[in-house]
Protein backbone atom coordinates (compact mmCIF):
# COMPACT_ATOMS: atom_id res chain seq x y z
CA UNK A 1 0.00 0.00 0.00
CA UNK A 2 1.21 3.50 -0.71
CA UNK A 3 1.18 6.08 2.06
CA UNK A 4 1.69 9.74 1.30
CA UNK A 5 2.99 11.92 4.10
CA UNK A 6 2.84 15.72 3.85
CA UNK A 7 5.00 17.61 6.34
CA UNK A 8 4.57 21.36 6.76
CA UNK A 9 5.70 23.96 9.24
CA UNK A 10 3.04 24.67 11.86
CA UNK A 11 0.91 27.71 10.99
CA UNK A 12 2.46 29.70 13.86
CA UNK A 13 6.00 29.20 12.53
CA UNK A 14 7.45 31.74 10.12
CA UNK A 15 8.50 30.08 6.86
CA UNK A 16 11.34 32.18 5.41
CA UNK A 17 11.60 29.95 2.32
CA UNK A 18 7.89 30.34 1.63
CA UNK A 19 8.26 34.11 2.04
CA UNK A 20 11.13 34.17 -0.49
CA UNK A 21 9.01 32.17 -2.97
CA UNK A 22 6.09 34.55 -2.43
CA UNK A 23 8.46 37.44 -3.20
CA UNK A 24 9.69 35.72 -6.38
CA UNK A 25 6.09 35.18 -7.51
CA UNK A 26 5.40 38.89 -6.98
CA UNK A 27 8.35 39.62 -9.27
CA UNK A 28 6.78 37.34 -11.88
CA UNK A 29 3.57 39.31 -11.60
CA UNK A 30 1.51 36.78 -9.66
CA UNK A 31 0.14 39.28 -7.18
CA UNK A 32 -2.87 37.07 -6.51
CA UNK A 33 -0.65 34.55 -4.70
CA UNK A 34 -0.70 36.10 -1.24
CA UNK A 35 1.35 33.54 0.64
CA UNK A 36 3.35 30.33 0.11
CA UNK A 37 4.19 27.70 2.71
CA UNK A 38 6.86 25.20 1.72
CA UNK A 39 6.77 21.63 2.96
CA UNK A 40 8.05 18.10 2.37
CA UNK A 41 6.35 15.19 0.70
CA UNK A 42 7.15 11.50 1.30
CA UNK A 43 5.88 8.36 -0.48
CA UNK A 44 6.07 5.22 1.62
CA UNK A 45 5.53 1.69 0.34
CA UNK A 46 3.99 -0.08 3.29
CA UNK A 47 3.29 -3.80 3.60
CA UNK A 48 -0.10 -3.85 5.28
CA UNK A 49 -3.34 -5.84 5.17
CA UNK A 50 -5.70 -2.94 5.78
CA UNK A 51 -5.78 0.81 5.24
CA UNK A 52 -5.98 1.33 8.99
CA UNK A 53 -2.83 -0.72 9.51
CA UNK A 54 -0.92 1.27 6.85
CA UNK A 55 -2.26 4.49 8.31
CA UNK A 56 -1.07 3.56 11.81
CA UNK A 57 2.45 2.80 10.57
CA UNK A 58 2.62 5.98 8.45
CA UNK A 59 1.44 8.13 11.35
CA UNK A 60 4.00 6.54 13.66
CA UNK A 61 6.97 7.12 11.34
CA UNK A 62 5.81 10.65 10.58
CA UNK A 63 5.65 11.38 14.28
CA UNK A 64 8.95 9.70 15.17
CA UNK A 65 11.10 10.73 12.22
CA UNK A 66 9.63 12.44 9.16
CA UNK A 67 8.31 15.45 11.05
CA UNK A 68 9.71 17.32 14.02
CA UNK A 69 6.61 17.87 16.17
CA UNK A 70 8.21 20.95 17.74
CA UNK A 71 7.95 22.96 14.53
CA UNK A 72 6.12 20.80 11.99
CA UNK A 73 2.76 19.12 11.53
CA UNK A 74 1.92 16.29 9.13
CA UNK A 75 -0.94 14.70 7.26
CA UNK A 76 -1.17 11.11 5.99
CA UNK A 77 -3.05 9.82 2.95
CA UNK A 78 -3.31 6.12 2.01
CA UNK A 79 -3.73 4.97 -1.60
Amino acid at each position, binding site marked *: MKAKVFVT*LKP*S*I*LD*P*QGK*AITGALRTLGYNSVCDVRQGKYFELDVEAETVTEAETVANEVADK*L*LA*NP*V*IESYRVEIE
Partner: protein
Amino acid sequence: MKFAVVVFPGSNCDHDAYHALASVLGHEVVLVWHKEIHLSGADVVVLPGGFSYGDYLRTGAIARFSPVMTRVVEFAAAGGPVLGICNGFQVLLEAGLLPGGMRRNKTLKFICEHVNLRVEVSDTAFTKLASVGQVLRMPIAHGEGNYYVDADTLRELKERQQIVFRYTAPDGSLDEQRNVNGSVDAIAGICNRDRNVVGLMPHPERACEDVVGSSDGRVVLESVVDAFRVGAVAPAG
Protein backbone atom coordinates in the same frame (compact mmCIF):
# COMPACT_ATOMS: atom_id res chain seq x y z
CA MET B 1 40.33 14.53 32.34
CA LYS B 2 39.23 12.89 29.12
CA PHE B 3 37.04 14.31 26.37
CA ALA B 4 35.15 12.30 23.77
CA VAL B 5 34.42 14.08 20.49
CA VAL B 6 31.76 12.14 18.59
CA VAL B 7 32.33 11.84 14.86
CA PHE B 8 29.25 11.44 12.67
CA PRO B 9 29.49 10.98 8.92
CA GLY B 10 29.52 14.62 7.79
CA SER B 11 30.94 16.11 11.00
CA ASN B 12 33.54 18.68 9.96
CA CYS B 13 34.40 20.47 13.20
CA ASP B 14 35.49 17.32 15.02
CA HIS B 15 39.14 18.17 14.43
CA ASP B 16 38.60 21.80 15.45
CA ALA B 17 37.29 20.50 18.78
CA TYR B 18 40.15 18.02 19.00
CA HIS B 19 42.70 20.76 18.33
CA ALA B 20 41.22 23.15 20.89
CA LEU B 21 40.92 20.53 23.62
CA ALA B 22 44.14 18.59 22.99
CA SER B 23 46.65 21.03 21.46
CA VAL B 24 45.48 24.29 23.04
CA LEU B 25 44.16 23.15 26.42
CA GLY B 26 46.28 20.03 26.76
CA HIS B 27 43.64 17.45 27.60
CA GLU B 28 43.26 13.85 26.55
CA VAL B 29 40.79 13.62 23.68
CA VAL B 30 39.38 10.61 21.86
CA LEU B 31 37.48 10.80 18.60
CA VAL B 32 34.55 8.40 18.91
CA TRP B 33 33.01 7.10 15.67
CA HIS B 34 29.22 7.29 15.73
CA LYS B 35 28.85 3.51 15.38
CA GLU B 36 30.60 2.89 18.68
CA ILE B 37 28.53 1.84 21.66
CA HIS B 38 30.92 3.17 24.28
CA LEU B 39 32.47 6.54 25.05
CA SER B 40 35.98 5.31 25.87
CA GLY B 41 35.56 6.21 29.53
CA ALA B 42 35.38 9.93 28.76
CA ASP B 43 34.45 12.50 31.41
CA VAL B 44 32.96 14.99 28.94
CA VAL B 45 31.21 14.41 25.61
CA VAL B 46 31.34 16.94 22.76
CA LEU B 47 29.01 16.68 19.77
CA PRO B 48 30.83 18.76 17.14
CA GLY B 49 29.65 20.97 14.31
CA GLY B 50 29.23 19.93 10.73
CA PHE B 51 26.61 18.42 8.49
CA SER B 52 25.89 14.99 9.94
CA TYR B 53 24.27 12.77 7.31
CA GLY B 54 24.37 15.70 4.90
CA ASP B 55 21.59 17.42 6.87
CA TYR B 56 19.20 14.97 5.18
CA LEU B 57 15.58 15.26 6.32
CA ARG B 58 16.39 17.89 8.97
CA THR B 59 19.63 18.96 10.62
CA GLY B 60 20.59 16.36 13.22
CA ALA B 61 17.52 14.23 12.52
CA ILE B 62 19.36 11.09 11.39
CA ALA B 63 22.44 11.45 13.62
CA ARG B 64 20.19 11.09 16.61
CA PHE B 65 19.69 7.42 15.65
CA SER B 66 23.43 6.65 15.55
CA PRO B 67 24.35 3.81 17.94
CA VAL B 68 26.59 6.05 20.08
CA MET B 69 23.66 8.37 20.83
CA THR B 70 22.05 5.76 23.10
CA ARG B 71 25.19 5.95 25.20
CA VAL B 72 25.25 9.77 25.06
CA VAL B 73 21.65 9.90 26.33
CA GLU B 74 22.56 7.58 29.22
CA PHE B 75 25.72 9.57 29.93
CA ALA B 76 23.71 12.82 30.09
CA ALA B 77 21.01 11.22 32.29
CA ALA B 78 23.74 10.13 34.73
CA GLY B 79 24.88 13.76 35.04
CA GLY B 80 27.77 13.61 32.57
CA PRO B 81 28.58 16.94 30.91
CA VAL B 82 27.62 17.11 27.22
CA LEU B 83 28.35 20.04 24.91
CA GLY B 84 26.63 20.31 21.53
CA ILE B 85 28.19 22.84 19.17
CA CYS B 86 26.28 23.98 16.08
CA ASN B 87 25.24 20.71 14.39
CA GLY B 88 25.88 19.07 17.77
CA PHE B 89 23.26 21.41 19.26
CA GLN B 90 20.86 20.44 16.47
CA VAL B 91 21.47 16.75 17.27
CA LEU B 92 20.73 17.40 20.98
CA LEU B 93 17.43 19.04 20.01
CA GLU B 94 16.43 16.16 17.74
CA ALA B 95 17.45 13.65 20.43
CA GLY B 96 15.19 15.42 22.92
CA LEU B 97 18.08 16.17 25.31
CA LEU B 98 17.28 19.86 24.90
CA PRO B 99 13.92 21.48 24.07
CA GLY B 100 13.08 23.30 20.82
CA GLY B 101 13.87 23.04 17.14
CA MET B 102 15.75 24.83 14.37
CA ARG B 103 14.39 26.72 11.40
CA ARG B 104 16.23 28.15 8.41
CA ASN B 105 17.96 31.46 9.19
CA LYS B 106 15.57 34.37 8.74
CA THR B 107 17.73 35.68 5.87
CA LEU B 108 17.77 32.22 4.21
CA LYS B 109 21.53 32.68 3.97
CA PHE B 110 24.29 30.57 5.45
CA ILE B 111 25.90 32.98 7.91
CA CYS B 112 29.61 32.77 8.63
CA GLU B 113 30.80 35.60 10.88
CA HIS B 114 31.82 36.53 14.40
CA VAL B 115 28.97 37.35 16.77
CA ASN B 116 28.70 38.67 20.31
CA LEU B 117 27.18 36.38 22.90
CA ARG B 118 26.01 37.45 26.30
CA VAL B 119 26.42 34.90 29.06
CA GLU B 120 23.03 34.63 30.80
CA VAL B 121 23.84 32.12 33.53
CA SER B 122 27.08 30.94 35.09
CA ASP B 123 25.86 27.85 36.90
CA THR B 124 25.99 25.40 33.99
CA ALA B 125 28.76 22.88 33.40
CA PHE B 126 30.07 25.04 30.56
CA THR B 127 29.76 28.60 31.89
CA LYS B 128 31.00 28.15 35.42
CA LEU B 129 34.08 30.33 34.92
CA ALA B 130 32.21 33.01 32.98
CA SER B 131 30.30 35.82 34.62
CA VAL B 132 26.68 36.72 33.98
CA GLY B 133 26.54 39.59 31.49
CA GLN B 134 30.00 38.86 30.11
CA VAL B 135 30.12 39.24 26.32
CA LEU B 136 32.02 36.61 24.34
CA ARG B 137 33.04 36.94 20.71
CA MET B 138 32.83 33.72 18.73
CA PRO B 139 32.20 32.69 15.14
CA ILE B 140 28.98 31.18 13.84
CA ALA B 141 28.70 29.17 10.62
CA HIS B 142 25.23 27.82 9.94
CA GLY B 143 22.20 27.93 7.67
CA GLU B 144 19.72 26.62 10.21
CA GLY B 145 20.28 28.26 13.56
CA ASN B 146 17.00 30.06 13.88
CA TYR B 147 16.00 28.59 17.23
CA TYR B 148 12.32 28.05 17.93
CA VAL B 149 10.31 27.12 21.00
CA ASP B 150 6.63 27.72 21.64
CA ALA B 151 5.55 30.39 24.12
CA ASP B 152 4.92 27.92 26.98
CA THR B 153 8.34 26.29 26.65
CA LEU B 154 10.00 29.70 26.39
CA ARG B 155 8.34 30.74 29.64
CA GLU B 156 9.60 27.53 31.23
CA LEU B 157 13.14 28.09 29.90
CA LYS B 158 13.12 31.56 31.44
CA GLU B 159 11.70 30.40 34.76
CA ARG B 160 14.28 27.68 35.06
CA GLN B 161 17.05 29.94 33.77
CA GLN B 162 17.93 27.57 30.95
CA ILE B 163 18.84 30.28 28.45
CA VAL B 164 22.64 30.24 28.54
CA PHE B 165 23.67 32.56 25.68
CA ARG B 166 21.95 35.36 23.74
CA TYR B 167 23.03 37.20 20.60
CA THR B 168 23.71 40.82 21.55
CA ALA B 169 25.57 43.96 20.53
CA PRO B 170 29.24 44.17 21.62
CA ASP B 171 28.17 46.04 24.77
CA GLY B 172 25.81 43.22 25.74
CA SER B 173 22.58 45.03 24.88
CA LEU B 174 19.83 43.20 23.04
CA ASP B 175 19.42 44.41 19.47
CA GLU B 176 17.19 42.57 16.97
CA GLN B 177 19.69 43.34 14.21
CA ARG B 178 22.34 41.40 16.11
CA ASN B 179 20.02 38.42 16.34
CA VAL B 180 21.39 37.42 12.96
CA ASN B 181 19.48 34.18 12.42
CA GLY B 182 16.14 35.32 13.87
CA SER B 183 16.09 33.03 16.92
CA VAL B 184 13.23 33.31 19.38
CA ASP B 185 14.27 35.72 22.13
CA ALA B 186 17.76 35.99 20.53
CA ILE B 187 18.63 32.59 22.00
CA ALA B 188 22.06 31.30 20.96
CA GLY B 189 22.43 28.53 23.54
CA ILE B 190 20.46 26.69 26.20
CA CYS B 191 20.93 24.01 28.84
CA ASN B 192 18.80 21.20 30.22
CA ARG B 193 17.15 21.31 33.64
CA ASP B 194 20.08 19.57 35.30
CA ARG B 195 22.46 22.09 33.67
CA ASN B 196 24.94 19.43 32.54
CA VAL B 197 23.87 19.45 28.88
CA VAL B 198 24.53 22.66 26.94
CA GLY B 199 23.93 23.36 23.26
CA LEU B 200 24.90 26.48 21.32
CA MET B 201 25.13 27.52 17.68
CA PRO B 202 28.36 29.56 17.94
CA HIS B 203 31.71 27.76 17.95
CA PRO B 204 33.72 28.14 21.18
CA GLU B 205 36.26 25.60 19.89
CA ARG B 206 37.07 27.95 16.99
CA ALA B 207 37.70 30.83 19.37
CA CYS B 208 40.46 29.45 21.59
CA GLU B 209 43.51 31.25 20.22
CA ASP B 210 44.11 34.92 19.47
CA VAL B 211 45.66 33.95 16.15
CA VAL B 212 42.20 32.89 14.88
CA GLY B 213 40.60 36.17 15.97
CA SER B 214 39.32 35.40 19.45
CA SER B 215 40.10 33.28 22.46
CA ASP B 216 36.78 33.99 24.19
CA GLY B 217 35.58 30.43 23.61
CA ARG B 218 38.14 29.01 26.01
CA VAL B 219 36.02 29.92 29.01
CA VAL B 220 33.35 27.48 27.82
CA LEU B 221 35.76 24.56 27.59
CA GLU B 222 37.74 25.54 30.69
CA SER B 223 34.52 25.80 32.71
CA VAL B 224 33.78 22.12 32.36
CA VAL B 225 37.35 21.27 33.32
CA ASP B 226 36.96 23.36 36.45
CA ALA B 227 33.50 21.92 37.19
CA PHE B 228 35.05 18.50 37.02
CA ARG B 229 38.01 19.40 39.18
CA VAL B 230 35.83 20.65 42.02
CA GLY B 231 33.41 17.74 41.66
CA ALA B 232 30.46 19.83 40.50
CA VAL B 233 29.67 17.31 37.81
CA ALA B 234 29.44 13.58 38.22
CA PRO B 235 31.91 11.24 36.52
CA ALA B 236 29.50 9.29 34.35
CA GLY B 237 31.73 7.79 31.65
